[in-house]
């Protein structure tokens, strides 16, 4: 392999699994050599792939965006099981015989399950000043500690600051739990499934992936909008999607 030329070193980048009659999106940036995305079929299912040179590392910002845009474009009109970024097989035969054929029933059943459904992400971030004001109104220890550090030297009060931060962090975490539960309850009627993402930032209030029937997209937007309006002074919301059901595919297979 080390002696072959760059042109020979092509692999097959796999974006995801789709029904075999899916039209691959055209005119989109692909990962690899710029030739378009193609389907490698096996019965009623197919892998959405593009050829990729294997002597160049992948994972640039452009690559990451290309992966997601490709899958989201497919998800607009077909069911799709998204692969995690970075799946490359040696040959189209490997895609067919190694990936598709042995797991055809499993993939076909999963595609059926996702037919007509898309994912949305809803992310709410606390308006920091508002949520901190809430904490100070509710937590006597935080108020005491805040008074103790006020105007004092930062290094001299480091322990008190850490303690204050700890208390505030715990209070915000409790709010996150309560708010996430309340928000999930509010939008649940519009969703087929809800998957919670781990908080990635201390200001995160709500971070949920939603599996939604395509026909109910308007309902969902309305529900999110209503919840966002209710919490407008304390949480800033973003609704992302429709996108491929990244958070709802699970590899149940061991090999």
């Amino acid at each position, binding site marked *: 392999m080390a002696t072959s030329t*760059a042109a020979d070193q092509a*692999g097959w980048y*796999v974006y995801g699994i789709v029904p075999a009659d899916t039209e691959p999106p055209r005119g989109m940036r692909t990962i690899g050599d710029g030739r378009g995305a193609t389907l490698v079929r096996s019965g009623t299912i197919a892998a959405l792939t593009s050829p990729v040179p*294997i*002597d160049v*590392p*992948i*994972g*640039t*910002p452009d690559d*990451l965006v290309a992966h*997601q845009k490709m899958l*989201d474009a497919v998800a607009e009109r077909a069911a799709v099981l998204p*692969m*995690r*970024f*970075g*799946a*490359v*097989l*040696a*040959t189209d035969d*490997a895609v067919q015989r*190694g*990936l598709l054929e042995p*797991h055809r029933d499993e993939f076909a059943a999963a595609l059926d399950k996702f037919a007509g459904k898309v994912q949305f*992400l809803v992310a709410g*971030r606390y*308006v*920091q*000043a*508002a949520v*901190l*004001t809430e904490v100070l109104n509710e937590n006597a220890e935080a108020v005491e*500690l*805040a*008074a103790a550090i*006020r105007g004092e030297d930062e290094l001299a009060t480091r322990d008190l*600051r*850490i*303690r*204050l931060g700890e208390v*505030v*962090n715990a209070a915000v975490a409790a709010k996150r739990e309560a708010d996430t539960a309340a928000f999930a309850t509010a939008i649940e009627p519009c969703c087929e499934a809800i998957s919670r993402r781990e*908080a*990635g930032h*201390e*200001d995160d209030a709500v971070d949920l992936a939603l599996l939604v029937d395509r026909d109910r997209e308007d309902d969902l937007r309305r529900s999110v*909008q209503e919840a966002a*309006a209710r*919490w407008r*002074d304390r949480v800033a*919301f*973003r609704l*992302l*999607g429709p996108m491929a059901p*990244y*958070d709802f595919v699970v*590899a149940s*297979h061991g090999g």
Partner: protein
Amino acid sequence: MTAVQSTGGSMLDRPSPTGLADVIDTILDKGLVIDAYVRVSLVGIEVLTIDARIVVASVDTYLRFAEAVNRLDISHDKEGLPGLVGGMQQSGAKHKTKGALDAAGDKLREVTSGKAERVRSGRHHED
């Protein structure tokens, strides 16, 4: 509508995920893992990845929270409580936005510089 505003404007009007941070969290962390399905023929291509998640609770987090409370306290003193809420929320939101942008920028830099380095060393290999 201000309630749904964020770094990218109103997300309810602009539904497509475009930020690199959103993409990273989604496609590096989620989705089918091909290794679970295929044991042979997986190409050992080098994949540049980064750890997308920030640790939620650390001393840094605590100190940031303490500083934020301290700033809030000082503003209370200066402006008095009633008029405070509107003004503080705005500056709070601004601060938050900047933080998010910084974080996204850091991720981007990490990816880009990692790429530059590795691509360079990769080429040396090839030449």
